[in-house]
């Protein structure tokens, strides 16, 4: 898990219970659901989630040029080659 450096690549995908965390250059995508049960696995999931969130917050807080909103690369339109 320590290898998860947020916003550093477009490759990594982590599973925490039924939650998915994906590393992208412009965002960290987190979706799904996780049960933080009051047991060993709950603690493990909670720590994994905290580790990701802490790393994300640290990177964002250190970024002095954080824009109000991330900029997307525009798409273009082409004639449907399958029609």
């Amino acid at each position, binding site marked *: 898990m320590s290898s998860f450096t947020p916003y550093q690549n477009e490759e990594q995908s982590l599973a925490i219970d039924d939650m998915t965390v994906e590393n992208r250059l412009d965002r960290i995508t987190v979706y799904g659901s996780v049960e933080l049960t009051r047991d060993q696995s709950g603690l493990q999931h909670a720590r994994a989630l905290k580790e990701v969130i802490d790393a994300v917050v640290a990177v964002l807080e250190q970024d002095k040029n954080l824009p109000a909103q991330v900029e997307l690369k525009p*798409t273009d339109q082409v004639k449907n080659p399958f029609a």
Partner: protein
Amino acid sequence: MKECDDARFFCFFNALNMKLTKLHSLVGLTALLLATGCTAKQPSSCTNHFWEGQAPVITNPNLAKKTAMLCFEGYAVMHSGISRTPLWSAEHLTAQRIEDAQQLKRVNSFHAEEQLPTADRAELVDYVRSGFDRGHMAPNGDMPTSNAQYESFSLANMIPQHPKNNQILWEGIEETARNMAREDKDIYVVTGPIFEGSNLERLNGRVLVPTFVFKAIYDPVRKQAAAYVTPNAPGMAYQTLSIAELEKCVGMNVFPKLPAEIKAVKMNLPAPRPHGGRGGKNKPVEVDSFERQ
């Protein structure tokens, strides 16, 4: 034969279907040639993913250009060098496979597909800052081994999918398919994009964005089949179609060995339940047709 613009449902490919009707005999011949060609190129490990060992057959000649079939441990895929996406991904799901998949949670890596020529394949950079998810067609959650999971992260298995579709409604549809495999022990699934309309959106000048996504399911226990269709867009609206209805719209024969009488009757598909019914007021809603976007 019902036409695709039948009032009962909205079809994504009205113009195409008119063309297909005119070109009926040519299309039939193309389908036959394609079927033969695919069978010849098909490595033996591929056949387990298909009902009766027969891969889907593309009947729209435009869709069949620059395609390559790849076989992986957990799925087979037909990749298009034109859209740089899959056109279909096929899987055979069993109760045991889903149980194995459930117990296997790990770190994984999205990657370009090295087996494809560089000119034909998507690269990770194509999706950078696009706002689109890399949406699995054969889902990671169906993959029973580390190797199968890794292979499911190939970009040959990915479409540019709207995050609000991929992460919520579509995830619910994937989970519904897994539940069917858990209950009936054995289902065949073909998942793919639909490219509808005269113009398409494109990422990085390379990867085409589908307008809809389908998941076709055959349940050999019930001897029934049907398909879910959703727009590749935010929202909770989905359609269910018979396989016959779907095939007319998508320009491919998804289960070539399935008898016409099974294809003609729509299996009753359960309503998707994203993340076990969580998600508040926004519940999936089945519709007869989609609003034009």
